[in-house]
């Protein structure tokens, strides 16, 4: 009798083990699901757009004629906007991070600013667009120019940069600043000569990642009224511009009018993804190369 019972138990155990391995496969397939969609997405875009990419497409001006349309204006627009975003986010972002990590005492002001930053990170990007429209485009009367677009996107990605710069500063070991203070260095000397240089690789990595977020953003630009079909290239902060994601947007929604526009959108997506891929690779290379051995 006892043997039978044991056998019975055993069978039940087998069933449980089998159930476990079935679910393990289901969990694994779920993990793969996202990746499969990613592969399909990239394959689809490549399939549709790759044949449209050539030198004329990259260097050409915009045109309603799909065969002659190029994206140089959008590339230049994106570059100009980034020329605003990079210095603005770096100065404000790193400055804020230094203040929070190294100057502010743990307490109300610090936790107030930090809570505020984490809430800002959750604000939808389109709301930043309205902020930019109201403050930069209308109130300051810049119009829908590079500066307005750049400042709007800078405010949008600022929380990301601040948080990563804070982490970078926190990762600098205390014994380095101790050594500096021990030599009679002042606080600012220690920060400028020891802490900041040691944190710079990680800060750069974080800033590249926030930059790539800014490059892909579309919604705030649509709110600012960034035009789609713009023939002249931007030449300065107060020129109107268009950007890569805006180009993709208009070509996608107009694809129902001119079928080739979908291909142009796909080709532009390839260029955009390539830029993001290169930026992210650079970020990873910097991180791996400068991982400090303190």
């Amino acid at each position, binding site marked *: 009798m006892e043997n039978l019972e044991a056998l019975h138990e055993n069978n039940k155990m087998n069933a449980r083990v089998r159930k476990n391995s079935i679910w393990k496969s289901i969990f694994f397939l779920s*993990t793969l699901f996202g990746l499969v969609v990613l592969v399909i*997405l990239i394959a689809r875009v490549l399939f549709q757009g790759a044949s449209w990419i050539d030198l004329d497409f990259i260097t050409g001006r915009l045109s309603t004629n799909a065969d002659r349309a190029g994206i140089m204006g959008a590339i230049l627009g994106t570059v100009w906007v980034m020329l605003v975003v990079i210095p603005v986010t770096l100065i404000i972002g790193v400055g*804020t991070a230094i203040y929070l990590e190294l100057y502010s005492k743990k307490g109300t002001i610090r936790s107030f600013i930090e809570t505020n930053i984490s809430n*800002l990170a959750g*604000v*939808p990007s*389109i709301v930043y667009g*309205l*902020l930019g*429209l109201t403050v930069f485009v209308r109130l300051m009367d810049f119009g829908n120019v590079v500066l307005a677009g750049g400042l709007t996107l800078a405010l949008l990605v600022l929380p990301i940069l601040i948080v990563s710069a804070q982490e970078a500063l926190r990762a600098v070991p205390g014994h380095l600043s101790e050594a500096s203070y021990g030599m009679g260095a002042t606080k600012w000397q220690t920060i400028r000569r020891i802490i900041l240089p040691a944190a710079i690789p990680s800060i750069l990595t974080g800033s590249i990642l926030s930059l790539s977020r800014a490059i892909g953003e579309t919604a705030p630009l649509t709110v600012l009224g960034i035009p789609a079909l713009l023939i002249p290239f931007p030449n300065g902060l107060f020129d109107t511009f268009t950007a890569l994601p805006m180009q993709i947007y208009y070509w996608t929604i107009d694809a129902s009018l001119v079928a080739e526009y979908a291909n142009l959108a796909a080709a532009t997506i390839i260029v955009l993804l390539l830029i993001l891929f290169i930026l992210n690779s650079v970020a990873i290379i910097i991180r791996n190369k400068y991982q400090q051995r303190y």
Partner: protein
Amino acid sequence: MATNSESKFNSAVNVSELIAENKKKKSINNYMEKLVPAILFLLASITVLTTIGILYTLISQAVHFFMEVPILDFFTGTELKPLSQNPEFGILPLLNGTIFSSLIAILVAGPIGIMSAIYLSEYASDKVRRILKPLLEVLAGIPTIVYGFFAFTFVTPLIRSIWPQVEATNILSPGIVMGVMIIPMIASLSEDAMTSVPNGIREGSLAMGTTKLETTIKVVIPAAFSGIMASFVLAISRAIGETMIVTIASGSSKNFTFDLTQSMQTMTAYIVEVSGGEAPAGSTLYYSLYAVALTLFAFTLIMNLLAKYISRKFREEY
């Protein structure tokens, strides 16, 4: 210093005296020590100014709107006809679109995200996890405009080939694609919650002869429950604020309907449509932008605070 005063050194120079002399005129250093924290504080306050700017922009402009459209009519109106002769501004069609698209997204991302989290946290070897996790994060790094293109030109036609009643612009396809976009968010936040469950709890269960599946379902998930919940709330908040996918793939019909095959407009898509349509500044239409944006802002803020509240409670558990 006597030990090594070799002839080549300029013995006339006494470093400590030189330093002492420099210290007497160190005015710049003293100045910097006071100036720098002040400058940094000003830089840090820009983030606070941003919040004030957002609140002020939204509220001050929305007030104009509510002077012309009563608040109650706005929040209970089922008709949104901003451009008609007798314009009506009810937000319910937009809430309808927002809630539907977010609901579809979370129905896709919830189960898949949490199952991915279970695999990564409980089953995958370190090596596999190190490969899969960054790949999954790539999904979160793809610009939303690309997802919009994908939903509109690939997923919608695919759905229509199976289910012909689905319209060319509809809420189903962007909902699904948005779900794919937020999978990594749920997966990685839930995985964090599960990995922070102490191993002792896990081992205690496994030692009683339970399988990994049983331990995961009965022990790990309940212990990580609030962390998982927080990831859901954050993901929903992200979906509510998402703009480009729904703008492109769901069109601009302001339908107040439960029919997924139809075009619906979300709050975010409305903002894009109206602001892109050169609404004359000062018109009710223009101000309606801010009323909708304020509602959107309130929704996402509440969700984010809720997520923070849940995860703070969760941190106290161990």
